[in-house]
């Protein structure tokens, strides 16, 4: 008599979704890697030492996983959160006090901190194994940009709860933009950019204004950071991640002694 699991696995529905038999023998372990969308990022086989946990620390993988966790929890948070000065704070309070599954915000915030840490550790590992050396130079460059995007994601998210911690941290951070050489209104050289005696760089047209959308952290900033945090930067990061992973394969898989 067929067991229940066999009945399911022989059904038309199951077979239409999962196209390969159970990966219990060599042939099917290869097939599974080739036919499953989620697994096809990987090669079918790899050097044993390259995939060893003590070599990669799985740090890039963990960073990617945290990116996914942030995406999922972030979408759930967006259901409850309105990015306006009027509502932002009280929506966060409601998330804490009223919404069931009360750890959503915690998962998202601690996940973000964790992602900053793991991305540093990943970079640390890549450096210490010299994996940026030819032919992987460009993947390192992509990595540095991903590192920057990770930090910017964290930074833009910091403002959204609209509490004291948030606006003052962002104020401290964005005040620096005011001092950008030439492009900040208190930056060296900005005074040189005048046309016919009219300053081109003022506190309403400088780099800080561009970041904040206003002269100080306010409604416009919240909107700007919200869009950056929820749409623009994640999309950019997702694209770069796709290329990052593609390049690992094209550069000959995870590094190892020549």
């Amino acid at each position, binding site marked *: 008599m067929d067991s229940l699991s066999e009945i399911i696995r022989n059904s038309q529905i199951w077979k239409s979704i999962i196209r390969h038999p159970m990966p219990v023998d*060599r042939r099917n*372990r*290869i097939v599974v*890697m080739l036919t499953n969308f989620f*697994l096809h990022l*990987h090669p*079918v086989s*790899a050097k*044993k*030492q*390259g*995939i060893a946990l003590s*070599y990669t*620390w799985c740090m890039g*993988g*963990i960073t990617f*996983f945290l990116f996914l966790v942030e995406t999922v929890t972030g979408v759930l948070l967006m259901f409850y959160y309105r990015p306006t*000065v009027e509502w932002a704070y009280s929506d966060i309070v409601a998330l804490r006090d009223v919404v069931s599954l009360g*750890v959503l915000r*915690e*998962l*998202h915030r*601690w*996940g973000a901190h964790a992602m900053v*840490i793991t991305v540093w*550790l990943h970079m*640390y*590992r890549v450096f*210490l194994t*010299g994996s940026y*050396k*030819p032919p992987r*130079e460009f993947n*390192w460059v992509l990595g*540095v940009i991903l*590192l920057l995007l990770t930090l910017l994601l964290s930074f833009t998210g910091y403002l959204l*709860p*609209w*509490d*004291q911690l*948030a*606006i*003052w*941290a962002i104020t*401290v*951070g964005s*005040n*620096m*933009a*005011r*001092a*950008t*050489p030439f492009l*900040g209104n208190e930056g*060296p*050289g*900005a005074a040189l950019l005048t046309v016919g005696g009219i300053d081109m760089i003022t506190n309403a047209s400088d780099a800080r204004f561009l970041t904040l959308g206003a002269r*100080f952290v306010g409604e416009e900033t919240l909107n700007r950071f919200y869009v950056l945090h929820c749409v623009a930067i994640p999309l950019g990061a997702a694209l770069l991640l796709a290329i990052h992973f593609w390049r690992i394969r094209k550069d000959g898989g995870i590094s*190892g*002694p020549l």
Partner: protein
Amino acid sequence: MHGHLSQAEFLAGMAAFLGVFYLSLAIMNAIAAAFLWESGRGVTLFRVNVFGLYSLPFTTPILWLLVATYFVALSPLAFSGDPYMMWWVSLPTVVIDTIDYWVNPTVYTVGSLVFFGSLFWMRRFFVKPVVAWSCFNLVLLFMGFSMTNQSFSAIVTKADNVPIVGLMFLLGFFTWLATSRAVANDDRALRGEPPLESVDNEKVLVWPDLVYTELICMVAVLALLLVWGLLLQAPLEEPASSVKTPNPSKAPWYFLGLQEMLVYYDPWMAGVVLPSVILFGLIAIPYLDFNKLGNGYYTISQRKFAYLNFQFGFLVLWVTLIVMGTFLRGPNWNFFHPFETWDTHKVEALSNVDLSQWFWNDLFGVARPKAPEGSGGLKQFLYIAYRESPGIVFIIGYLVLLPPVMAATFMRKFFIKMGFIRFMVLSNLMLMMGLLPLKMILRWSVNLKYFISIPEYFLNL
């Protein structure tokens, strides 16, 4: 902050946490002992002679079992929550007083350099599992003993600071792991053997070998995140108010290294130029490092130059400054050692002088040159340039004249291998990185404020 609690109330509140903490440390050490015993990986540290009859080996499992016993003994003391009992699990006052007396930004920064330097020079010693595990235990013990201090526990357990405590332990662990593999590989290279990474390195199927590892990592990370989220609530302060400025106002922790640089450099340097240089420098690494060795395996001796530069930038500057900005900087960005209460009224005398002030006023005993009232823009500019000429000459000399000197002396080989442009990029990146410690030292030793001080153009360096 817990400032309003009496010490007795505070200790009673810490009791359960600390009791569990020591119990966990005991279990951790017992597991280590059991693991070493089972796997036969224990080492004999020395032998004890019993009445000249037997010579009993004192092995690592025995050592960790003793340590575990010690922690078991600490646990009830901590659980008691009684101030007299907990005296036994607190730092002695003399230690706190010593820290109070000695620690300041100079000692902290130089101390970190010495600390990382000695870890590096004695890496063969520190990678030994016995030594590393002892250090780990000692750090945990120190943390535990410090937790009975209100100021220390307030700053360490502040929800947003917990990740940095985690970061320190993770960095410690992974640095140890990487260094011990590098040391092993360097030893093998001396014997003419290939690195460990090429031994037993046949191709294996990704299912199951990699897919399972990833799955386990995913489950572990998710579990950790859930526990973290359940134990620690995400911080939420009062609603934003543009009139009430908190003191200190801190940037998010991963940018605190930059905020710490503000002590030494103006925002255009600390917030814009230096971060851009850091990013550019990171991107440039693969194109500057011409060393073909050490690609795809852990090693230190085969790429010492790259290794030391990176570690100086990452561990000594970036991480150390973040730790300082998070734990040691309080109201008004004053320095507070970890056992000090954050007092908003603490004042630190600031009497820093600009290079041009020192040059004209002190060295030549004249007033700084100043354009006569009502002179035109160009004249003003020339006077300012004249006034600041010592600093301008110094900076130009530093960034323009030093590279050729480096190329001609200790970096000759680099120059020949890299060619003019690449060498210029490398040497200037190194010099830019050096600007920070340079300014720190000058600030501490001669109270230098700016090399070049042109507030007229917002150009202070």
